[in-house]
């Protein structure tokens, strides 16, 4: 729920009254553009309108945004992530890659809310980067974005909920968030890839540490979900209560906590096929899509 507060002031006497009212704002719902069968078929499977948001992966810097063809025109709020190999010293991105990024940012559409980031989940230990590399490279990338992207475009950072857990970066999570406090700038939106911290950790408990961590650093930022499912690619066991419970609980939490985007991740090669093996999960995704306004 969102609260709107307004003060009405008598322009002659200065006397005033303040009133507030609340209303609901649901997250935009979508999938990764690489899900089995594609986005258009997925909307048909769920019996919903075309998706307005989707996550699009690029394993290298594309020639232009979003880096792939076949993205439905309905996707007005795409989240594009670009993998960039970082250097070992400032400015952390090679000159050639900086030029390539400039071309991508310059090509972002002037309509909708196109979003872009580099190095999805790169704060994770598996990537082998330091905080200096992560924060510094986002600084370099952000400055290139500012100089080249259209006014309606948004620069973001996509982290993992797991990174805020004791098995991830734990109490040092804040050092990996690109924001003013870490030497960068406060971004308007941050994305979290949301998977169970363990097979017995609820959806809420899996996200709360990272959500609170970012909100404590940048209270005004929107939070979006960049990926979501009951089992991460690194896990052998999914959420113990099941995939259906995971999506029911995570959507309810996303709505209650005013998340801006909720992008689910399905990919057969990653043990998360679409449509889901359980028709009840498909029905739940359909319900979520309709609740989001689709």
């Amino acid at each position, binding site marked *: 729920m*969102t*609260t*709107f*507060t*307004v*003060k*009405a*002031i*008598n*322009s*002659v*006497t200065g*006397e*005033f*009254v303040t*009133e507030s*009212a609340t*209303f*609901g*704002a*649901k*997250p*935009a719902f979508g999938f990764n553009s690489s899900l089995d069968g594609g986005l258009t078929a997925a909307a048909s499977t769920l019996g919903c309108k075309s998706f*307005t*948001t989707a996550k699009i992966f690029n394993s290298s810097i594309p020639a232009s945004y979003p880096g792939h063809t076949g993205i439905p025109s309905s996707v*007005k*709020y795409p989240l594009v992530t670009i993998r960039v190999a970082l250097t070992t010293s400032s400015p952390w991105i090679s000159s050639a890659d900086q030029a390539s990024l400039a071309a991508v940012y310059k090509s972002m559409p002037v309509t*909708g*809310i196109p979003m872009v980031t580099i190095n999805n989940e790169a704060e994770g230990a598996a990537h082998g980067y330091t905080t200096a590399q992560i924060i510094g490279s986002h600084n370099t990338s952000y400055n290139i974005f500012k100089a080249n992207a259209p006014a309606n475009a948004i620069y973001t950072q996509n982290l993992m909920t797991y990174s805020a857990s004791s098995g991830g970066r734990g109490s040092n999570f804040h050092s990996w968030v690109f924001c003013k406090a870490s030497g960068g700038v406060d971004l308007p939106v941050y994305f979290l890839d949301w998977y169970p911290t363990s097979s017995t950790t609820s959806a809420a408990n899996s996200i709360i540490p990272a959500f609170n961590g970012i909100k404590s650093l940048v209270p*005004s930022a*929107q939070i*979006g979900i960049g990926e979501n499912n009951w089992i991460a690619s690194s896990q052998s066991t999914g959420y113990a209560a099941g995939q259906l419970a995971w999506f029911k609980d995570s959507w309810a939490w996303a709505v209650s906590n005013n998340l*801006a*985007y909720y992008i689910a991740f399905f990919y057969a090669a990653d043990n998360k096929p679409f449509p889901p093996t359980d028709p009840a999960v498909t029905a739940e995704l359909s319900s979520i899509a309709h609740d*989001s*306004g689709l």
Partner: protein
Amino acid sequence: MSAPVILSIAFSPANPVTGQTVTATVSYTPGSSGQLFTFKATATDKVSGLTAPVSGSFTVTEPDATTWDTSGNDRVWNQVSDNGAQAVFTAQF
């Protein structure tokens, strides 16, 4: 003298999704302030010529213009219009 009275606040759409523009319509009655007037007259007896003053005061109450403050919200609300009974604001979600 009085402050405005806000009667209701309505939103359209009522359940926006991210990316939509939300319109908030605030229905209200303006505040007012009064201006004091004094009426003075002299009554004269036409036969005797004796006079007596008479006076009285009254207040004219008029509605005052309203200004609005939406700062402090978690997003920017822009005023679109105000016709003296409804003020309209929009914000991007």
